[in-house]
């Protein structure tokens, strides 16, 4: 990685002004309009939410070490898993890749100076902070126990936990997501550099664009739903409570109209990162560019037609169940298209197993399992047996953690040298990537089995015969925990004593690798003119291929 190539050698040794050195005061950060600084502030905040969510997860796993209700009371356990879900979904997974990597890289990847609406971008960060602070405050006051899904009538009529305060936090936070989505769409439409046509956009940008569509179209619905819930809880207007003329299933319709597409808000950006990693670390033009680009859009659109698969056993009509079951099978197709194209890209590629690529390969395996078990749950017959068991828990953790978190970590490792100008320890990077992979599988694979055998989710106790598999799970969680803490240490250390990364440490053609590391505040010294196709490793890209080959020869194989 430290090989000096033709592009790097042309750069003088004098440190240039970059976005990090452009002002050191607190004010220069808090009032910045620079998308890169905003991304860094998002990175710090969501990492804290991730750790908080992780602590709740450890509490869950420790409680489930024994069949009895011993470490936590049942009431506390309800709050713990609810808060784990709320923090992880609304405050980590949804903003993770878009707000951090998307914010930092989307303008650079399309050759723009910033996002189209820089002030709106800062506003979205503040909204996220306000929503987050309110939620944390409510959690400290006593928290919620409804499950992250806030199902009625429990949430409206019976629960006396802080439903309203957390609901308000999520309501406010939603606007942050809407503004980010809006900003990305406007930016992609109006800010592309000369020559950067739609079909030269990196697939990461396509994925962000598709995600933004879902954010804009879906998030208002959850906001309205939370508002309706609040109206019923405070004023007593009958919307969801049958006793006063409402219908509890209506809540589930509205909630899942957003929350199923929200799954795609969480996974689509991850798929975008994986497209980058697979193509770039195979040094091969991605197979089926258009198919991958349009499959992102197809997922965004068809993702809105399947929400009823969360309601098969909740009183929805059999006919609606059949339609939603069928459409669920249909929406699997575009994800499968991506998997096939990534595999075809790897074929005869010149693959190097650097840390980000280890994450990408891990993603492919884990997302495959997560996606295919989704089909089990979408099948209207089998799902009756599997509903509300640990099989569901295992399925969505394979998609959310095995998919999105792994892709996020891969993306962080991949772009870290660009974001900070420093290279982290490749040795520890690989160790941690493998620990995450092993720990993850050890945690969640047993849950498929125990769920299939009938262990229900959301209980603090369980029959003694499930204990062995639960011990596996808790043991795996501790390995996973170590694997996730390690990057904090070695990435942190790289800021102090990491080797300077150079502008293009991986020898890649993308626009983000053609500016300095870290990039200057205006991203490029002069507006780039794009004359090459995406993922072009030939001479057309204007890159020094000999340098690339030299680098390949010294790259270590795990």
């Amino acid at each position, binding site marked *: 990685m430290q090989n000096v190539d033709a592009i790097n050698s042309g750069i003088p040794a004098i440190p240039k002004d970059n976005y990090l050195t452009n002002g050191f005061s607190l004010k220069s950060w808090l009032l910045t309009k620079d998308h890169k600084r905003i991304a860094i502030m998002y990175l710090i905040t969501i990492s804290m939410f991730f750790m908080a969510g992780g602590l709740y997860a450890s509490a869950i796993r420790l409680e489930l070490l024994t069949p009895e209700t011993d470490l936590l009371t049942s009431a506390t356990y309800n709050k713990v898993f609810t808060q784990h879900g709320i923090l992880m979904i609304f405050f980590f997974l949804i903003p993770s890749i878009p707000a951090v990597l998307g914010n930092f890289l989307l303008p650079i990847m399309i050759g723009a100076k910033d996002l189209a609406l820089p002030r709106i971008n800062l506003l979205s960060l503040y909204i996220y902070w306000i929503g987050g602070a309110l939620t944390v405050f409510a959690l400290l006051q006593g928290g919620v126990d409804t499950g992250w899904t806030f199902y009625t009538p429990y949430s409206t009529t019976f629960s006396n936990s802080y439903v309203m305060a957390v609901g308000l936090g999520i309501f406010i936070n939603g606007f942050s997501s809407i503004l980010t989505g809006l900003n990305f769409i406007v930016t992609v*439409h109006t800010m592309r550099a000369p020559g950067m046509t739609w079909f030269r956009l990196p697939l990461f940008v396509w994925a962000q664009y598709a995600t933004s569509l879902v954010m804009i*179209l879906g998030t208002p*619905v959850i906001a309205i739903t939370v508002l309706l819930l609040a109206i019923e809880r405070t004023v007593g207007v009958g919307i969801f409570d049958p006793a006063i003329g409402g219908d509890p*299933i*209506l809540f589930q*319709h*509205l909630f899942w*109209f957003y929350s199923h597409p929200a799954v795609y808000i969480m996974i689509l950006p991850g798929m975008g990162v994986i497209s980058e990693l697979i193509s770039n670390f195979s040094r091969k033009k991605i197979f089926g560019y258009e198919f991958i680009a349009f499959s992102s859009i197809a997922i965004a659109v068809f993702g*809105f*037609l399947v*929400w*009823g698969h969360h*309601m098969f056993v909740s009183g*929805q*009509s*059999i*006919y*609606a169940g059949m*339609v*939603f079951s069928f459409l669920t099978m249909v929406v699997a197709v575009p994800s499968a298209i991506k998997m096939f194209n990534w595999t075809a890209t790897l074929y005869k590629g010149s693959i190097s197993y650097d840390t980000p690529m280890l994450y990408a390969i891990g993603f492919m395996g884990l997302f495959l399992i997560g996606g295919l078990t989704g089909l089990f749950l979408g099948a209207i017959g089998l799902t009756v047996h599997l509903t509300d068991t640990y099989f569901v828990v295992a399925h969505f953790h394979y998609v959310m953690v095995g998919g999105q978190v792994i892709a996020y970590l891969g993306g962080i490792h991949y772009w870290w040298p660009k974001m900070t100008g420093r290279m982290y320890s490749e040795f520890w990077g690989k160790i941690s990537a493998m620990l995450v992979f092993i720990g993850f599988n050890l945690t969640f694979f047993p849950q498929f089995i125990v769920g299939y055998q009938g262990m229900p989710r959301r209980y603090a106790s369980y029959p003694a015969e499930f204990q062995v598999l639960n011990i596996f799970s808790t043991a795996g969680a501790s390995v996973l925990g170590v694997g996730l803490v390690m990057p904090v240490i070695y990435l942190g250390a790289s800021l102090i004593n990491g080797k300077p990364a150079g502008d293009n440490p991986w020898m890649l053609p993308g626009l983000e690798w053609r500016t300095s590391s870290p990039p200057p505040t205006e991203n490029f010294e002069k507006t780039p003119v794009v004359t090459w196709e995406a993922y072009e490793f030939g001479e057309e890209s204007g890159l020094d291929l000999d340098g690339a080959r030299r680098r390949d020869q010294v790259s270590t194989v795990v």
Partner: protein
Amino acid sequence: MSDKHMETGEGHIGYPGYIGVFTILVVGTIFTYFSSFWDLDSIFPGANTLLALAIAFTKMTFVMLFFMHVYWSPRLIWLSAVASFFWLAIMFAYTMQDYFTRGLGVFSV
């Protein structure tokens, strides 16, 4: 989208136009209130709701076209506006697909 009127702070139809639209909204609201006292449901069930929704829809169209300037906007904005209604239609249609078929089939009485 050349907003030369925008710079004067008056918008495309000026203050009289905006006041006109506002009047339509107020009249619509009053009309909705009084229409709820008529027994239209005797004509066919749900007629009252239908009328109220029709008034609401008209009011909303005025707001979108004039207050939100969609009327003078380029095609892409029109497309986005129409698409959002299409999305709303999806939400309603697929939800109603459940409600209208409850109790059919094996669970019918």
